């Protein structure tokens, strides 16, 4: 797929086999250019997430309570957007990566992932710099839960979104 489509900019894996995809992306040298979204937070996909190879993991965590209403994600999304726009660049979200979850119970675990990415790295640029090209307006972020994640949230499906790279 990578060889046939030099203009491939995104990749969605609805199934398993993420190890193979990570290997192929890294071998092609395009891992940092292609936005890759996959499912299931595992030891492997977590590593890919932290390494910036995968950009978002959509996770299902059995046994968790039904998620709060999607609107409860809005404060977090606004903070992300403020961080992007530079309004609060030194908040916790100024790291290279962070995680979003619609389920409060999962937020804590995912927040710890975000903190793990905080240690300084030589190539670490500010969140604002790295994400300028992907900036999303606040208005768009406000729209995010509407119509997209309602059922997802109801089913405790969480979104671990790493705005990597």
């Amino acid at each position, binding site marked *: *797929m*990578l*060889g*046939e*489509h030099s*203009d*491939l*900019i*995104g*990749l*969605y*894996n*609805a*199934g*398993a*086999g*993420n190890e*193979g*995809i990570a*290997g*192929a*992306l890294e*071998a*092609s040298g395009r891992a940092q250019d292609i*936005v890759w*979204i996959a*499912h299931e937070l595992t030891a492997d996909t977590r590593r890919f997430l932290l390494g910036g190879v995968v*950009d*978002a993991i*959509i996770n*299902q965590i*059995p046994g968790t309570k039904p998620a709060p209403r999607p609107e409860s994600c809005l404060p977090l999304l606004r903070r992300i957007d403020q961080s992007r726009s530079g309004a609060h660049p030194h908040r916790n979200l100024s790291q290279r990566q962070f995680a979003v979850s619609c389920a409060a119970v999962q937020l804590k675990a995912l927040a710890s992932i975000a903190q793990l990415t905080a240690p300084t790295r030589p190539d670490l640029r500010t969140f604002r710099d790295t994400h300028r*090209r*992907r*900036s*999303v307006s606040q208005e*768009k972020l406000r729209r*995010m839960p509407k119509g*997209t*994640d*309602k*059922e*997802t949230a*109801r*089913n*405790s*499906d969480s*979104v671990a*979104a790493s*705005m990597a790279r």
Partner: protein
Amino acid sequence: MHVDVFDPTALASALERLSPSYHGVATVALDHTRVRAAIDDLVARGVHVVTLVSDAPSSRRAHYVGVDNPAAGRTAASLMGRFLGGRKGKVGVIVGSMSLRDHAERHFGFYQVLSGEYPDLVALRRARGATTANRIGR
């Protein structure tokens, strides 16, 4: 009990061979004629069957336990569109098997949102089976 998740014959056979001593069965279901028939046979003899992760809704299983997969696919497309923030280009889509309803439903939800809300992003025809690096690297 482990069965190849992509092999409907193997899964159906495993369900058919289950000991009569079981009162309940939970299975990651393939949405395939043989698997549905095997589930229905179990239910007919009084076994309670639930599907996990991937459903076979037209079978007689009692319940499905798992997430809303079309919504998960729509979420993925929404994130893809936002991350790519106005860029134009192709997006590859990979599924393990369209007989696995969770994959098929995610695929459906992804196309629904990507084609409807992000016209600058063109989803390629789905590629099957990403268990090796070869298919993706080619």
